[in-house]
């Protein structure tokens, strides 16, 4: 079974580095995008097994990116985890409404994130 690909859409390099380092010792293959538009384009091109989507992004917001991905047949059912800074109430609901599979609040524990990933797309044993 081939390695599973995860797309992380995030504009902050240190945060991307955390996930990059976190997944180094796993079988997951990480690809990265720096803004919403690039994220959507990469998702459609590479068809990842899972997407981690930051909500506060340049160009188009993570919510809008999720909506666009859900409208495409190739990514309509791809698991998407929305990551937000939990600025205002109702962010979780907005993410769910846009079509996110799960929701994570910053700051998140890297190991909790790994657990969540493994729950949604288990590594081949």
């Amino acid at each position, binding site marked *: 079974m081939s390695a599973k690909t995860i797309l992380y859409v995030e504009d902050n390099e*240190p*945060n991307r580095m*955390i996930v990059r380092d976190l997944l180094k010792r796993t079988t997951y293959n990480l690809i990265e995008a720096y803004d919403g538009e690039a994220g959507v384009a990469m998702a459609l091109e590479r068809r990842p097994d899972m997407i981690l989507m930051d909500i506060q992004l340049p160009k188009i917001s993570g919510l809008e990116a999720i909506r666009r991905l859900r409208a495409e047949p190739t990514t309509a059912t791809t698991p998407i985890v929305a990551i937000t800074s939990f600025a205002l*109430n109702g962010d979780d609901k907005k993410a769910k409404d846009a079509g996110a599979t799960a929701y994570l609040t*910053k*700051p998140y524990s890297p190991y909790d994130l790994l657990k969540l990933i493994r729950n949604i797309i288990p590594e081949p044993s």
Partner: protein
Amino acid sequence: MLNRFPVAVKVLVAPALIIMLMVGIIMTAVVALHQQQSAFFRVVGGSLNTANMTTRLLVSIAEVQSDLLRYSQLEQRLAPSDQLLTDLRRSIKSRYSTIDALFGEIKTTTLGSGEADAVSNISDFLTIHRAVSLRILDGTSSGTTAVSTLMAHYQQLQSYIVELGTRTAESARAAEVQAGLYVNRLSQYILYGSFAVVIGSVLIAFYVGRAISHPLTQLISALTAIAEGNVNVRIPGLKRRDELGEMARAVNVFSSVSRDLRDREHLLTEKSQQLEAASKHKSEFLASMSHELRTPLNAILGFNEMILGQTYGDVPPDMQAPLVQIQASGKHLLRLINNVLDLAKIEAGRMELSLSDYSVYEVVDNVRSTLESLAAEKGLQFVVRLPPDIPVAYGDAGRITQCLMNLAGNAIKFTKRGKVEIAVECRGQVLMYKVTDTGMGIAPEKMETLFTEFKQTDASIANEFGGTGLGLSISKKFIEMHGGRIWVESESGKGSAFIFEVPLRVREGGPT
């Protein structure tokens, strides 16, 4: 204009004017009828008198004529000095006096020109008749010739007298016709006059009514306009000198007051819009601030956790403790940021509860699992007491958890030995959360300020235990937003009990 007369005067004068007009027309009618009556009496009475005189004159002349005829017959048979003739002579002369008297009276009463002609003719022939008669009586003229002449004169005189009678009757008839015409005209005048008075009265009543109602209507429409919010209404009748003018000036004052009020209202609306905009900006600033602060904090805590988790290889034993401190301080910083942001959101009025069904058991379990290790580290007994029959609650589970976490966290923080207990009770429709500790307790005079922002009971405590003192005031606001209340029961040195009550099921759109 008439505006200077008070309404009261107008109201009193108008009916008086109408009554005066009525009285005027009635008086005119009475006077005219009275005059007509006099004229009628004069005409009819004069005619009657003339007719009467004329008849008597005719009779007297006929008597004279008869006496003369008898005289001329007797004269031939009797001596001139005969007593009978003497008597007759005297009788005839006296009859002439009567005729003169009657005629004199007729002359004074006759009026018409036709009658005057007749009267003049009668006068002439009467003179001739008398002259002839006297000649017969004094014997200068006698015989059949004189009598026949006299007869002719008599007939002529008779015809003139009859003519006078006819003329008099004619003039009486003419006067009658004229009187009838006059009465007709007069009754028409009275009719027209009454009609004019009625119209005049209606006009006066209308004018007075309008003089009162028109400015009132204008004032009412001005007031209506003011009431509808049109502040630049021109008040009519401000310069009137009557009661309506006073009213208009009062309305003007009212209008300017309401204009002021409107201006102030506009100002207030403007200010509140500015405030709303400011609050919105603040809220947007908070949202972006929250993101800006959490993103680096995420990296700090994330990297540190991975270092501690040996993702980057073995951690030297000396570095273990500092790394744990970094983690704890980072989390503390996060809590402070959360508290400050929460409080700012509450103050900006942007804090909203996210209401849903929730399990009290999950809330308490969440708090217990988070704080258990902390209590254990301090060697405190950590007890949770929950009855098994608490129904599903409705409210903001996240905020309730935050409040309970605050209270229990504080209890662990401020208790050096003994135990911390979390208990929940459901009494009817009220949920009561209670956190008791065996800490130092709180003095009564310090309990009041406990839930106020940035207040801790003692500055030294803040130094010893840390914290911003925001937790309790935020908890208080969240509980109040649920429609509940929070309080503390404590005795200095004997521990404290922090208790809050919230409705089991929070009403949608209720107290916030």
